[in-house]
């Protein structure tokens, strides 16, 4: 199993327009990390645990950071965060919450669940590079 962090970024975002904004902005700012975009929490876990559509370890290298939108369908963003931070194999991966508002009540809960940081949408890439 590949455990070396590399330059993959896992983007968990159900809004495909927002995801496109992130991906294109990264390209424009010459951020060369490979971005893997999944639409919901289940797919994110599939990726992280190398199962489902991502079975085959080479398909899903361990991401260097996870960008997580809190408002996700099915498994909610907070629940996914909890899953990630309570699994030994995954808890070391930094998780950055993407939120529409700093005042978001869920931010407090996110920090309680050991989110590493947050970014307010639309994402400011200077801030993002500094975070990394």
């Amino acid at each position: 199993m590949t455990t070396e962090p590399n330059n993959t970024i896992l983007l968990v975002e159900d809004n495909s327009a927002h995801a496109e904004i992130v991906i294109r902005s990264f390209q424009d700012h010459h951020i060369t990390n490979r971005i893997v975009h999944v639409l919901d929490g289940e797919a994110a876990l599939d990726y992280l645990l190398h199962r489902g559509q991502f079975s085959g370890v080479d398909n899903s290298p361990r991401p260097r950071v996870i960008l997580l939108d809190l408002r996700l369908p099915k498994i909610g963003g907070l629940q996914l965060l909890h899953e990630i931070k309570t699994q030994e194999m995954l808890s070391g991966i930094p998780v950055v919450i993407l939120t529409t508002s700093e005042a978001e009540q869920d931010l407090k809960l996110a920090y309680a669940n050991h989110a590493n940081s947050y970014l307010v949408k639309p994402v400011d890439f200077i801030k993002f590079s500094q975070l990394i």
Partner: protein
Amino acid sequence: MIDDAYRFAYANDELGRILHYSIEELVGMDFRNVLSDESRALVADYYIRRRRGEQIPLRYELSIVRRDGQMRYGEMSATIVRDAAGRMRTMGQFVDITERKQAESEREALIAELETKNAELERFTYTVSHDLKSPLITIGGFVGFLERDALLGDTDRVKADVVRINDALARMQLLLDELLELSRIGRVMNPPEVVSFEAIAREAVEAVRGRIEMHDVQVEIAPDLPPIYGDQARLVEVVQNLVDNASKFMGDQPQPRIEIGAHQIETETVFYVRDNGTGIDPQYHEKVFGLFDKINPASEGTGVGLAIVKRIVETHGGRIWVESELGKGAQFCFTLPGSPVGYQP
């Protein structure tokens, strides 16, 4: 004043006015006749305790029944006295606090309602601001890309950017329209009338004919449906939304089918819209009615439809729920009190 046989030995004008009896009628009457059942039991208990030598409260609340049957509430204060002939009597003073109690309970009800509405408003505002912000972020992002792509002369990308922007605008428009509808439901209802549920079902199905045909769905309306009492236009919206949803979530069903009908469950008439589509996971059975809580965000719709449906049903005094399992279709059930009971399908 009460004698030791529970009779009024004396009563003043005021007591006569409260009870709607004349003093002549009251004197000699067993005072327990004017007590409510609850107060009668309380007084009996006090008498027993007093005879045992226990202390009983000198002041307590009693409910009495007026001559015309109306219930009045009062504060009773009682003392033991000796009358002119030296006999022990209970001297009571009764203050009518009925209006005060009524005002208190109305106040409590209003406060509770206000708290509920406030909580709802907060949740609503929070949800709305997020869900409207989202398309704004999209528009902001793609206007930026649009400018850049236009300057680079990349017309394909320009077109794609414009599509993203227009989609976001349309979404905001739709959200706002539906929110307006949702807020109106509580305030503006047409006067209720007796309407045939069958007529409502037919009108609803007609309104979504386009989608029904697009998905090749068979729709069956049960015969002999009962009439109901309510706001016809709004009830058409209810059935329309449910049928529309059912058609959208047929999945791979080769013979999609929707049934609209009613059946009797104990004393209630329960209406249903049933489909044989993809079904809904039980963990989401409450969530489906939540504002903007879409189970599958990629599906069409704003997530407001079922919230509207729920609001309409509840404004009619009814309840709505869903019975479903993944892969086994869904049955949306609702009651409309005011529908005649005793309906035999």
